[in-house]
């Protein structure tokens, strides 16, 4: 099977943007092709990771629209929706297109336009992924986070402050990311005194609502050198699904689809958790970073809160830097863009292009979570030989 290379990566400014979805996607896609020096006509497949442009904006058919706007006709296009994990699912789709030989050049663009809607409206669009028995009670993704965080803290006797350590770390990292929505350090005291959103979680335990887009360009590794002196290889990738109804999971603090997708991605890559030098995890809520550290095999069950407290996941001096980009927490979370932007950060880290955020890394991991762990993709990236 053909090894798959990533030869270009870009992301737009994340935050409160005046651009609409078509413009955001075109901005990241055009920048990715231009920086890689690849003609739009060379693109065989074009994938757009997007959860809800129809619901947010009333714009459907976004992948066809993007092919026209980029001058990539007659490329085959497809919109990939895995809710918040659409970006990671797009990586999996792009990988399949190249590995199977169906495409020799695949552009993946993830994006979402959200900030024109109120917080309540945006929350409802996202909550529409829930089962009817959840939705009628007003369950939201932040509510699931509150329920799970209380269970985790109680069961493992973990201090509330450990969640604040995750938020403080990711905000600290975001200071050095000029594309991040928030580039401001926040103290643990501020986090612990911020307004309650879903008890015991507070405002700073949650990512913001964001506009933005990110892109990656894939081709067979055998031809990667024709386009780029340095590139990254998708060493392993997999996806998995957990129960739609969240309360039916046997252990409410265990993310089964994270564990399953990680197993597949690690098996394909030949690497394991100990080989990973840098990771971008889906910190839509602080508790999720801890649960992913455990399900990915970086920490034993019930112990990841200690890693955050001890600085193990710090960018500067940490054993395993997590969310050097600032994570969804400070970079922002334009749903369909987030999984793609995770890989943009790891791409830059592996190629030494991360500037003040740079860590020493040969192998990186991205974990993109949809719903409350309902669907997950994990990818393992390495520097091309």
């Amino acid at each position, binding site marked *: 099977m053909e090894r798959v290379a990533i030869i270009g990566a870009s992301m737009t400014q994340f935050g409160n943007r005046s651009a609409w979805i078509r413009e955001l996607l075109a901005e990241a896609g055009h920048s990715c092709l231009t920086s890689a020096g690849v003609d739009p006509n060379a693109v065989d497949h074009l994938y757009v990771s997007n959860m809800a442009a129809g619901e947010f904006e009333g714009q459907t058919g976004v992948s066809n629209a993007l092919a026209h706007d980029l001058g990539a006709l007659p490329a085959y296009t497809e919109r990939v929706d895995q809710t918040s994990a659409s970006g990671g699912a797009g990586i999996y789709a792009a990988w399949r297109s190249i590995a199977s030989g169906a495409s020799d050049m695949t552009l993946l663009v993830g994006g979402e336009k959200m900030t024109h809607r109120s917080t309540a409206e945006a929350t409802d669009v996202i909550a529409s992924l829930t089962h009817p028995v*959840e939705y009628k009670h007003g369950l939201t993704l932040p509510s699931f986070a509150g*329920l799970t965080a209380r269970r985790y803290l109680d069961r493992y006797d973990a201090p509330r402050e450990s969640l604040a350590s995750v938020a403080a770390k990711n905000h600290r990292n975001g200071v050095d990311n000029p594309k991040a929505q928030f580039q401001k350090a926040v103290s643990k005291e501020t986090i612990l005194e911020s307004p309650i959103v879903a008890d015991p979680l507070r405002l700073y335990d949650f990512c913001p609502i964001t506009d933005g887009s990110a892109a990656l360009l894939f081709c067979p590794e055998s031809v990667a050198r024709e386009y780029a002196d340095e590139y990254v290889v998708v060493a392993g990738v997999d996806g998995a699904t957990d129960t739609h109804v969240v309360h039916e999971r046997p252990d409410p603090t265990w993310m089964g689809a994270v564990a399953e997708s990680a197993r597949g991605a690690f098996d394909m890559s030949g690497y394991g958790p100990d080989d990973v030098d840098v990771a971008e995890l889906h910190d839509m809520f602080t508790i999720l970073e801890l649960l992913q550290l455990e399900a990915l095999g970086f920490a034993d069950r019930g112990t990841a809160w200690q890693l955050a407290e001890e600085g193990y996941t710090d960018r500067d001096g940490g054993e395993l830097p997590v969310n050097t980009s600032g994570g969804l927490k400070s970079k922002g979370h334009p749903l369909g863009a987030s999984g793609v932007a995770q890989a943009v950060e790891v791409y830059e880290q592996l190629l030494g292009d991360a500037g003040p955020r740079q860590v020493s890394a040969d192998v990186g991991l991205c974990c993109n979570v949809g719903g409350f762990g309902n669907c997950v993709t994990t990818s393992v990236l390495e520097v091309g030989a």
Partner: protein
Amino acid sequence: MSDADSTDDTPPMEAVRYDDGTITYPGHPVGPDGGDPIESIDLSEYTAEVLTWTTNTAPPPGVREPNTLAIVEFTVDGEWVRAIGQVDGDVSIGQTVQPVYVDELRDPEPSVRARDSQDWDGYRFEPVSE
């Protein structure tokens, strides 16, 4: 136990038992371990224990504010089955609660979901006084 307020018109809180003994709320065409559905169980006839809870102060349109929610666990003939729902009253982990019928849990009009695609009545959990 039976709810004093319930009448014959009150819909059940319908869980489903599968032929391998497992029970889920809600029911599915196939059970968690592959079993076929064999019978309905009305969870409103049972009490449950609170596994965890939260109070959401930023609910979506049409939802009461604040909205306290809990995941609870029922034990039916030795088999566990969990449910999620709104809570009335103060709640804590380990507390015993009972389902109480409410004819509209959420106003469907301002929500993004089509009104006729699902029902909007159901059961809240109330603490059982010791």
